[in-house]
């Protein structure tokens, strides 16, 4: 019996101890509801108090931090002291509360802190290792991968590695250039840019988008038809003219500066290329449109330039073909009005009303409008297509009184995979990417040979319609006349009647000229932006009958008109 009792006692003792262990275990595992062990009240309160103390300290810490860091004009410093006092007070409280516990428990909490460090965690190590490897990879790519030299999308040679110079190093410009070169020619630049634009397509909603590239827009309202003709400009000596244009560039450089008083070290070559910067672009239904803003001064100036030319060349037939852009032809007039200026047709009529009635004035707006469901404008480029130019050509033939050739008479070629200026100017808009263009062209029957003088004065041979299969995606419009040359001569060996014409154009004219080849013995093409000689003299010397202006609606600005005028003096 005694033995049994003793045994029982022992067992009870053991089970009591066991109970204690269980209680301990349960009290240490807060929130372990699934456990079969019931935590007793004591255990729970203890852990709660422990936790609340911890959170108290954290709270006090945070307050202290804020007070430390912040600007506290009124109660400066005192808060900081208080909070540190709080901290100091908290520590003994914690010790006190843990004294209530059994020794095992106290050991437990101590070793918890100890053990926490000994649990091996590879997370941070792994992350450190990966990110360092990543940076090593970036370093290798950035340093050793081949760098691009030319950017297709921007149509420019990329920055060159600067030459070291002591002065440059002293004032920092050498390093700035180096930095610029490094990022401008970063390996896989085109691919990265492509991906970036993909990223940007997630920025917002809506199929339409707007790209503002030009901030100083002046928009005038289109007046009623003018009663008076635009004045004939008195021609100034050439030198003065040039000086004036230089001033324009000067002011451009200044207005480009963004008020940071940075001296613009950009080379002026860029500004030398006349023509406007990529304007404001509206994208809708996978097609881009350049927004048109009516410019009153430019219109008057343009008309007066034409009048001036006519007055200088009374014996020649002067044709003026004004070409609208896709914005004016294809978009809903109310939308045009919302975005910029609508009624391009009225603009043309107004301009024509200011011109000498002896000028053959051709607004091809109606023509293109009638064919607007056909492929007369590119989706991703600001030009018209060969087809659009063909309809204008038919209109021209009607005005001139000759029979136009049918499209079927020509040999047809088609070059696919064309991404034009809009695509790149919109930073590779995704919806445009899905709608690439193709360049259709009709090779003239008489000849496909041209002799071109480029902007640097070099003469070379090329074709009227060039094979652009191998060309880069952004340069396929160069199919026509091999791009913009200062002066181009096309001699048709099949016509021997001495007929000749000169076409004064910007790049819109390139698509138009091929259709003229079969009507003249000599076709001369002048790009007013690059041509440097006196065109009046040339026309008189060569007894040219037809002077044809092919101008795009965006060219009707005072600056461009001045440029056109300058080649006649």
């Amino acid at each position, binding site marked *: 019996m005694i033995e049994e009792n003793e045994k029982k006692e022992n067992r009870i003792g053991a089970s009591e101890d066991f109970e204690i262990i269980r209680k301990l275990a349960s009290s240490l595992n807060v929130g372990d509801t699934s456990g079969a062990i019931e935590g007793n009240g004591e255990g729970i309160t203890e852990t709660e108090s422990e936790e609340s103390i911890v959170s108290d300290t954290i709270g006090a810490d945070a307050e202290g931090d804020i007070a430390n860091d912040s600007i506290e004009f009124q109660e400066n410093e005192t808060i900081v002291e208080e909070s540190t006092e709080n901290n100091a007070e908290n520590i003994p409280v914690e010790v006190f509360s843990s004294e209530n516990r059994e020794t095992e428990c106290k050991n437990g909490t101590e070793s918890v802190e100890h053990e926490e460090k000994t649990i091996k965690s590879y997370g941070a190590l792994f992350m450190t290792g990966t990110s360092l490897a990543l940076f090593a990879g970036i370093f290798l790519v950035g340093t050793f991968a081949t760098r691009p030299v030319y950017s297709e999308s921007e149509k420019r040679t990329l920055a060159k590695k600067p030459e070291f110079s002591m002065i440059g190093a002293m004032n920092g410009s050498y390093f700035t250039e180096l930095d610029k070169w490094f990022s401008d020619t970063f390996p896989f630049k085109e691919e990265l840019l492509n991906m970036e634009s993909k*990223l940007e397509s997630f920025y917002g909603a809506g199929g339409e988008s707007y790209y503002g590239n030009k901030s100083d827009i002046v928009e005038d309202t289109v007046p009623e038809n003018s009663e008076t003709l635009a004045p004939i400009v008195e021609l100034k000596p050439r030198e003065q003219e040039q000086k004036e244009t230089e001033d324009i560039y000067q002011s451009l450089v200044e207005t480009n500066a963004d008020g940071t008083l940075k001296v613009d070290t950009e080379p002026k070559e860029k500004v030398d290329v006349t023509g406007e910067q990529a304007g404001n672009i509206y994208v809708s239904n996978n097609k881009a449109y350049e927004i048109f803003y009516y410019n009153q001064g430019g219109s008057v100036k343009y008309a007066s330039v034409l009048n001036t030319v006519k007055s200088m060349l009374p014996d020649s037939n002067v044709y003026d073909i004004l070409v609208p852009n896709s914005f004016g032809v294809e978009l809903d007039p109310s939308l045009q009005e919302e975005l910029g200026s609508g009624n391009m047709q009225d603009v043309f009529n107004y301009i024509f009303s200011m011109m000498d009635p002896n000028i053959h004035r051709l607004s091809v707006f109606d023509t293109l409008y009638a064919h607007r469901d056909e492929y007369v404008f590119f989706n991703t480029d600001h030009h018209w297509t060969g087809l659009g130019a063909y309809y204008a050509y038919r209109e021209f033939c009607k005005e001139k009184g000759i029979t136009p050739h049918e499209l079927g008479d020509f040999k047809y070629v088609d070059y696919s995979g064309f991404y034009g200026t809009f695509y790149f100017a919109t930073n590779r808009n995704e919806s445009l990417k899905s709608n690439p263009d193709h360049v259709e062209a009709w090779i003239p029957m008489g000849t496909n040979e041209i002799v071109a003088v480029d902007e640097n004065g070099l003469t070379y041979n090329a074709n009227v319609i060039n094979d652009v299969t191998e060309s880069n995606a952004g340069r396929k419009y160069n199919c026509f006349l091999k791009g913009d040359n200062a002066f181009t001569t096309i001699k048709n060996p099949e016509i021997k009647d001495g007929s000749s014409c000169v076409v004064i154009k910007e790049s819109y004219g390139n698509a138009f000229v091929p259709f003229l080849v079969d009507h003249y013995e000599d076709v001369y093409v002048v790009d007013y932006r690059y041509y440097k000689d006196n065109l009046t003299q040339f026309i008189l010397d060569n007894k040219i009958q037809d002077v044809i202006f092919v101008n795009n609606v965006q060219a009707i600005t005072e600056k461009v008109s001045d440029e056109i005028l300058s080649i006649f003096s």
Partner: protein
Amino acid sequence: MSFTSLFFVTVFFPVFLVVYYILQGMRAKNAWLLIGSLVFYAFSGINCLILILVMAAFAWIIGRMIQAAVDRAECESPDHQAGDEEFMNPTAQDAYEKNHKIARIWLFLGVLVLSAVLMGFKYSNFLLNEFDVSAQDEIKEGIIRLGMPLGLSFYTFKLISYVADVYRGRVKAGSFFDVMLYTVIFHQVTQGPIVRYDEMVSQFTERSVSYDGVSDGIWRFSIGLAKKTLMADHCGKLADAFLPLAGSGEYSVFGAYAGSLCYMLQIYLDFSAYSDMALGLGQMIGFKYPENFNYPYVAVSVRDFWRRWHISLSSFFRDYVYIPLGGSRVRFSRILLNLLVVWILTGIWHGASLNFILWGIYFYIFIVLENLIKKYGEKLKLDRINGALSETLLHIYTLAVVFFGWVLFRISDFAKLSEVLRAMLFRSERALYSTSEILTFRGNIYFLILAVTVCTPAWKNLGNLLSERLNHSFIREAREITNLANESSLYEQEVTKDQVLVEKYAQSNSDILNEVRQQDTENHQRMINRLENRLKKRKSERTKLEIVYYGVRMVLMLIFLYISILSMVGASYTPFLYNQF
């Protein structure tokens, strides 16, 4: 070099870091840090590098001089230190005062020269323009060309705080190397934070690198990088698109608001991104810098805003201007004057233009108003207003004040400023909105929403939630380990206790002893099994959490770095001229 240039991210930073980790010993590491910083700064031009070195050397000399004078004062009058000023003998008193005067003269000279250089660079051009001093164009040109040395405003303030701290005895004058490193350390040299010398110098000798620190640092850096290149730059672009400042750009009422909002987002994202990157870079090599921003756009008062915005600058003005002027322990009217000085200085510091001074005064007015309300507010019984409601109202009020503050900050041309403000208050004939603006807004709506959330602590709280859970699971696992260990020791105690009991009550009854022992062993085994199972469970829980935590972090970091590089490459993208017009 800028943190967000490709050259920094792809070349400078990896090379610097690898060499830093390879080098052993704090001296070598510090030397490398100094070399790296000099190279970093040299990218803004050797001229600027020479200037910063001269400035640092000057501050070092001043620091030495002040220290010498203070030391002499204390050495010659030991009584003073013991607090027995009243019983000092007159000669000692004189010597003490003389030396203190010398220290003060050095301090004055130091602060004067340092701020004169800052003023010289920052405001000469402004003064020339504003007051049209008929200076020759050559001089003007020269000054414009000289430009503003990179980070001058920031490191000058650091140096001023250094000499002032030496004078006040907060720190001992440092060695040439320390002062140099303190000034040019590349984490802070371009855009702050303006960390105090004592906080830095202790870390020059004692800091440790851990995997946690490095991974946290890289994480912070990549957040900053993405914030700047992806968000801030695009916000800037949008701000210019909505409300163009240059040229005769058209904008509507909506455009004026949207543009200013984008600018408000840009300025915070841009600046806090720089601070994030600086903190991250520091963390990677064991430095801890104080936070510079604490989500200023969630502030509930203008005072609160300034406690959260550019903290290192406001605390600089507090400690080196406001408190020396008497702090808050003076008459109320004097406080108003002190505050005015602080706010005008704050305004001037931000830029060389009148609108910045106006901007400082603008905030001064609101700070004073809030102080007045605080002083007399109890009479107004403002507490009666419902808590949540009043907090929302206060928040809106703060945001509105800050919003118009940034309008003032952004536009330095007064004619333009009044034009924009008139448009915003519907007092102009501008259209309410324009189609192109609506299209731009819609085309960036998700981006803008994201940018707004980045200005709130929401993302940080989410991250904290995750890391707290991870910590918690660590603690739980550790407890299981402890329990297991305790069980073994308890078992041993039990066995001995049993033996004692058996020996006490039943002489040499080995059967009972065996039985009891067997019982114990069984209990023990059961307990061990249970505990081990639980440990296993905890461990797998913890591992899972850890994988999720670090996995998410790593993936996000990769994305951030990747898109930052994309944006950086994209930034070199210049809209081209129509050369084929």
